[in-house]
């Protein structure tokens, strides 16, 4: 039993959300007088139990609003559980956000020490780490400048260096760490590999199934404040993907939409096969138009543009349309997409591309769930051969 470092025992957390926030005495008194207290009890976590062993890379998976962040904050000690108990053995350092407490009016050097103190390190400990941190961030020349004169990239670099050079027994990592440009992401992933090699206990929160599969030894899936699946990361990742599969490919109405509405995209249908992805977009003409350009763009689960094409680039003359005509534009392409939710943006413009009739961001999405994984932006069908 000695090797269990985090024990979460039947933990529940609920928040009282007042229907109207009474933050002045008057409204409180008025309320007492009326003897009415209306609030909603929001149960963010309900009876969650799990254990994390020493040296384990433990994944926590769930949709937005599933209770992941609440769990993270409970583990970090920011919230207290409403019910149940949490035991953490050893020094736990949370990285819910990089550069907590960074102050723009202080110099880089002062911020390193302030951030270190907030993470629970003494000045002496920080002094011994200081050269390392500055070296890794490649900011030695700028340490005596105020943070407000740093570019945002420099700030992130400094914060990230502090995060990885300070060492502790248990790390709480939120996937927000893995933001930034490609080279920075690579640094993050290299860092994750190093943690895994060094057998540091890590609790890793993500909704990128590829990294869960790649790094985690075990994982839990949280949905509606409860654990619905736990154990093998592969099993958890599949359960997570299935949750979305129920709805399958879907059109959504949340994306931004604009245009002159002479032509309107009515529907987007997506068929995801093992080899191919087929996207059908139905357009209706509200006014007569000549040679409109139809286009489609696909974004990967992490928001990188993977595919973009339109009828002009394909050198297709689309012809003339009368008012109230309806047409379907079909796109067929090899399934090079990576696991997770890919988003499709559709558009239609006039023959010069000068006037957009309809532009619909994230008009639809589709889920890819391949056996193979990658950390790259695309995963084309491929073969590997070894010759000796």
């Amino acid at each position: 039993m000695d090797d269990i470092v985090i024990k979460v025992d039947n933990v529940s957390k609920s928040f009282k959300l007042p229907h109207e926030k009474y933050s002045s005495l008057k409204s409180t008194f008025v309320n007492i007088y009326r003897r009415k207290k209306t609030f909603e009890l929001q149960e963010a976590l309900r009876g969650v139990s799990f254990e994390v062993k020493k040296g384990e890379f433990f994944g926590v998976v769930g949709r937005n609003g599933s209770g992941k962040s609440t769990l993270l904050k409970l583990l970090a000690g920011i919230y207290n559980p409403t019910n149940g108990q949490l035991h953490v053995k050893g020094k736990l350092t949370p990285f819910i956000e990089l550069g907590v407490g960074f102050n723009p009016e202080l110099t880089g050097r002062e911020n390193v020490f302030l951030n270190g103190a907030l993470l629970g390190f003494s000045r002496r400990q920080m002094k011994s780490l200081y050269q390392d941190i500055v070296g890794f961030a490649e900011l030695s020349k700028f340490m005596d400048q105020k943070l407000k004169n740093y570019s945002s990239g420099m700030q992130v670099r400094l914060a990230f260096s502090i995060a990885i050079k300070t060492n502790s027994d248990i790390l709480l990592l939120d996937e927000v760490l893995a933001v930034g440009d490609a080279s920075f992401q690579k640094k993050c992933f290299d860092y994750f590999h190093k943690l895994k090699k060094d057998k540091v206990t890590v609790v890793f929160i993500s909704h990128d199934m590829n990294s869960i599969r790649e790094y985690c030894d075990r994982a839990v899936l949280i949905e509606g404040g409860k654990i619905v699946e736990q154990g093998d990361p592969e099993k958890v990742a599949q359960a997570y993907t299935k949750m979305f599969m129920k709805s399958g490919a879907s059109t959504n109405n949340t994306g931004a939409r604009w245009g002159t509405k002479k032509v309107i995209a009515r529907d987007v249908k997506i068929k995801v096969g093992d080899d191919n992805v087929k996207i059908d977009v139905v357009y209706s003409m509200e006014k007569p138009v000549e040679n409109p350009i139809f286009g489609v763009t696909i974004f990967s689960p992490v928001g990188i543009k993977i595919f973009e094409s339109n009828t002009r680039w394909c050198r297709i003359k689309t012809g003339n349309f009368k008012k109230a005509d309806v047409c379907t534009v079909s796109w067929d392409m090899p399934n090079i997409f990576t696991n997770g939710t890919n988003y499709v943006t559709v558009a239609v413009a006039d023959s010069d591309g000068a006037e957009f009739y309809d532009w619909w961001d994230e008009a639809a999405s589709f889920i890819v769930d391949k056996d193979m994984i990658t950390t790259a932006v695309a995963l084309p069908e491929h073969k590997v051969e070894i010759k000796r």
Partner: protein
Amino acid sequence: MKPILSQKNRALLAELVRTDFKLRYQGSVLGYAWSLLRPLLLFLILYVVFVKFLKIGGDIPHFPVYLLFGIVIWNFFAETTSQSLGSIVGRGDLLRKIYLPSWIVVLSSSISALINLFLNLIVVLVFIFINHVDLLRTAFYLPLILLEVYILALGISLFLSAAFVKYRDITYIWEVAMQAGFYLTPILYPVSRITNVTLQKLLFMNPMGQAIQDSRYAVITHQTVTSGTVFGSSVIKFIPILLTGMIFILGFIYFKRQSKTFAENV
């Protein structure tokens, strides 16, 4: 039981105080000098109005120093409480993202005020020499009296900072309370000017009144009316000290209870 101030908490406290101090006079030309100038200028105004115009305090020896000393102690109390009041809300972004023992935040604001107090006491000391005041032997009691003021201020600060998370009116209420407190405490006027004995006694129920008069008695002149003079040997004279202790304990308990939900409510 873990030590209250573990090495980790000490480091955090030191860092917060350091940051507070660095940022306080950010961008002002005179910088830290303002810590000294503010009470001195206030003293100058009050001195001109009350001593020169209204001729108050003529019968008390070294009245200007006596007045300055009172103002410095009151300012320490006012600064601690008003700075701590918003400290939890002010650090709300931190408390939502990282675990911090929240009382350290309040303590750090109070320590900035404590540092100011020491700077101001040096000024008082300079005035004491300029005015040829014979420092009394009883001055050794001063740290004890200041400790009482600090405990009182800290207790109130804990209560205010926790209540401010829920009720944003507190800041306005406290502003008015401090105005009232300034005049209900014998800072500007000698207690002897109050002829009604019952009122005098009531005045000394106020821990700040008792503390300021005791400090003046201990350091500047024994010709100061203190709670000892008013109540004689009666145990009633310990009521202000008892009140201080009670306020601290209640403030601490309230803070402790509320602090569990700071991260959610702030």
